[in-house]
């Protein structure tokens, strides 16, 4: 079958909402786009453990400590699901790590911002996880089977993340003056970076069209961002706090909230590695990986020794079995 015919059949399947599975024929570009997107998504989960992991030992109650531990652990789990999904496309996890550690692969810029107070745990849950969920729910219907299945699992587990974040903020908003100040400050610092999580405006994302045609992406950046603003502008009222945007107001005609301009210069700078924590985050990941090298090697060496011993034992057993009884 020639390539054109295959490509045509492939697109027909996508159009009919039939999932693509690992062994199916797929265009090279589709495979590459998926590997990049899934692995970067995985890297984001892993790097994303660090800003929140910072606060596990400082969580202000035992209940909060347990919740935060479980949440950061979930992120490790999500990274693992995603790395596994990417591995079905013919890349190893080690290769993906190499891309991350060498600075070649990117991850979500949001994790290059520092977590400065306990309220940041709330703001991350509410805004950052909220923005992530808004992007991830459509991805659980994406055309590539293993990715879609990983996303279904992730979305199911994510729902508690956003709720626990909002609960932290809600508690702070009802607390003393220092706590309320902490709450507003965290919202101020995380609001704009969260909006940037949806990516550049549609005009600046020339490849969105192809990804939408392949059903790797199902809504445009701006569509999702608008939806997020509309939701948050209402939710913030429950906290008695404000979003740091003087242009934010309901537009009756559009039936949406209007919001102020995003600082894209900051966005591109953080993407390029000039964010407040880029170097630190990456260095931490590299350090953990390098410090773990001897551990990984020891486990392999032990398994090899063990199988060698088992093999030697089986062979001895066999040779006596086969020996004539009368000798």
């Amino acid at each position: 079958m020639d390539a054109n015919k295959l490509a045509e059949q492939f697109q027909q399947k996508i159009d009919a909402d039939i999932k693509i599975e690992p062994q199916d024929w797929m265009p090279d570009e589709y495979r590459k786009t998926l590997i990049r997107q899934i692995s970067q998504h995985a890297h984001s989960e892993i790097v994303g453990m660090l800003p929140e992991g910072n606060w596990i030992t400082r969580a202000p109650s035992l209940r909060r400590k347990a919740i935060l531990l479980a949440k950061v652990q979930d992120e490790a789990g999500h990274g693992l699901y995603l790395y596994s999904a990417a591995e079905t496309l013919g890349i190893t996890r080690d290769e993906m790590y190499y891309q991350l550690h060498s600075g070649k692969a990117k991850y979500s810029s949001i994790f290059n911002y520092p977590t400065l107070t306990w309220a940041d745990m709330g703001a991350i849950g509410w805004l950052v996880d909220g923005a992530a969920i808004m992007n991830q729910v459509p991805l659980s219907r994406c055309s590539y089977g293993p990715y879609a299945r990983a996303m279904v699992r992730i979305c199911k587990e994510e729902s508690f993340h956003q709720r626990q974040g909002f609960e932290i903020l809600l508690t702070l908003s009802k607390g003393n003056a220092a706590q309320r100040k902490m709450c507003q400050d965290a919202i101020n610092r995380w609001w704009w970076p969260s909006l940037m999580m949806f990516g550049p405006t549609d005009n600046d994302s020339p490849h969105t069209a192809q990804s939408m045609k392949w059903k790797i992406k199902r809504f445009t950046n701006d569509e999702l961002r608008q939806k997020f603003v509309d939701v948050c502008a209402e939710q913030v009222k429950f906290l008695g706090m404000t979003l740091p945007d003087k242009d934010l107001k309901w537009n009756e005609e559009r039936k949406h909230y209007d919001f102020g301009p995003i600082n894209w210069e900051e966005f591109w700078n953080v993407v390029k590695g000039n964010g407040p924590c880029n170097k630190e985050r990456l260095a931490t990941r590299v350090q953990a990986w390098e410090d773990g090298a001897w551990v990984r090697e020891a486990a392999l060496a032990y398994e090899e020794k063990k199988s060698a011993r088992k093999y030697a034992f089986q062979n001895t057993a066999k040779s006596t079995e086969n020996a004539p009884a009368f000798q």
Partner: protein
Amino acid sequence: MNIHITKFFYGDYGEIEGGAPAPVNNREWPLWEVFIRSKQGLDHKHVGSLHAADAAMAIENARDVYTRRMEGVSIWVVESKYIHASNPTEAGALYDPANDKIYRHPTFYQLPDELKYM
């Protein structure tokens, strides 16, 4: 595999072009496929994969990774390299014939509605 593309959307932040390809590492822990029985009486179902140095570790990892919310009562693991899969290009030959054998499905048979427990 050596991939360099620049593109930007959610979960895709582009990457720096060029650079050396990843060095070959054949000391990676092997990949295992995980199957979980969610409750007694059900089949084991494929839930995903993970890396482990040996089978005992793979089962423990599966417990830690895939049953954090009490999703399972029994775990199977098998090293991924031992999985043999059917070839999707032969899917027609393998599965299409079953399409005509509708007599294999219980709804093929028309029986009076009054007939119970069948």
